[in-house]
């Protein structure tokens, strides 16, 4: 009897492989968080040692400004603005579960589960729609 029970059934290869896929997808979450955390930490360290563009112009005691949109963040990244780097890390963090959902779509499609391919696709569409909505509301 196996410890921490995985039920011992007849090995069903398709199910086993879709389970392996699922496990792989789940590790996306963990790696995504680790990467994001590192980028955020990097940005914060740079911020303390270099200050960002606003603080240089206005002095550290002034309210530090930060990029307020995706476009501004990308521009900030070009000049290696630390607060833009921090924002990139935050954006990566937000993207991680979204990426996970997208991977599930592929996994369901690959295992021939049409219903859940559609359901998961719907979730992804909603996620993206929300972000677009927010952009307009800013």
């Amino acid at each position, binding site marked *: 009897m196996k410890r*921490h*029970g*995985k*039920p011992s059934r007849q090995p069903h290869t398709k199910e086993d492989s879709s389970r392996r896929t*699922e*496990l792989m997808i*789940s*590790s996306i*979450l*963990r790696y*995504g*968080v680790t990467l*994001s*955390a590192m980028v*955020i*930490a990097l*940005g*914060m360290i740079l911020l*303390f040692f270099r200050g960002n563009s606003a603080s240089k112009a206005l002095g*550290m*005691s002034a*309210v*530090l400004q*930060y990029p*307020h*949109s*995706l476009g501004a963040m990308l521009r900030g990244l070009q000049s290696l603005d630390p*607060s833009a780097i*921090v*924002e990139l*890390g*935050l*954006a990566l*963090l*937000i*993207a*991680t*579960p*979204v990426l*996970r*959902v997208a991977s*599930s779509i592929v996994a369901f499609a690959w295992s021939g589960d049409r*219903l*859940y391919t559609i*359901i*998961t696709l*719907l*979730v992804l569409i*909603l*996620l993206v*729609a*929300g*972000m*677009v*909505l*927010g*952009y307009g*509301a*800013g």
Partner: protein
Amino acid sequence: MMSPLVIQFFLLLGVSVLAGGIGSLMGLGGGMIIVPVMTLFMGIDFRIAAGASIIAVIATSSGAAAAYVRDRLANIRVGMFLEIFTVLGAISGAMLVGILNARVLYLLFALVMLYSLLPTSGKILREFRPRPSPPREADLSAGSVRTDKIARLLSLDDEYYDPTLDKTVFYHLRRVPLGAGIMYMAGLASGLLGIGSGAFKVLAMDSVMEMPIKCSTATSNFMIGVTAAASAGIYFSRGDIDPFVAAPVALGVLAGSFIGARLLPKIAGIWIRIGFLAVIALIGVQMLLKGCGVSL
């Protein structure tokens, strides 16, 4: 270098580590603790606080979610199907937070907070009066006739292996529409208040849809990250995520829950849990008062 912003940064970091530790110890989301601290004691705008908190929720839940899938406890189909409703709720909530009066937000937060304390107090009470809850009747009979039509249609029924019972338990879901409705509310709370709404999700799955508690908890943890990402995406594109607040909070809560999960269970005793519960109840009351316009 000691500008007020640097002080605020380290303060946020320290508080977040504590919140992450307490949260993982008590089974509460860190968001429940960190948002009141930021808004009540540090004077941070509610939207900024909620935005920072929701980032932290993504970080902590994503880190843990992999384990639940690995243990075959989380039901991914159920999770994905219900995500439709939580994400819709999260979008509604995140859009509403720009419109609603701050006092209403405090009131709602207090209500959700005090409601979420119930399962935690239940856990503490059970330690005083140990009474193992028997598995539900429906769980033990494989092929029970009480299958909900929608659950069958969507292949939501499943099985899992429970090591404590030493058998494979089949389960069937019921009242799926009601469960979906509660999931919408859970998403609403998440987008509006910057919390994970794990308590609501478990309520929907465990009490309403009759999924075994271990699977409900695991699936809830699996879902929280996606719901939070929905809210966070909106906050982000609206510019409500202040990196100087969100970064220390996210890193702090992540570190705190990591430490909490590893070290504290060995040290903490039942009285410490009661103490934390009292502190959080106190904070809940303060949020309530602030919602009613009283500032202490």
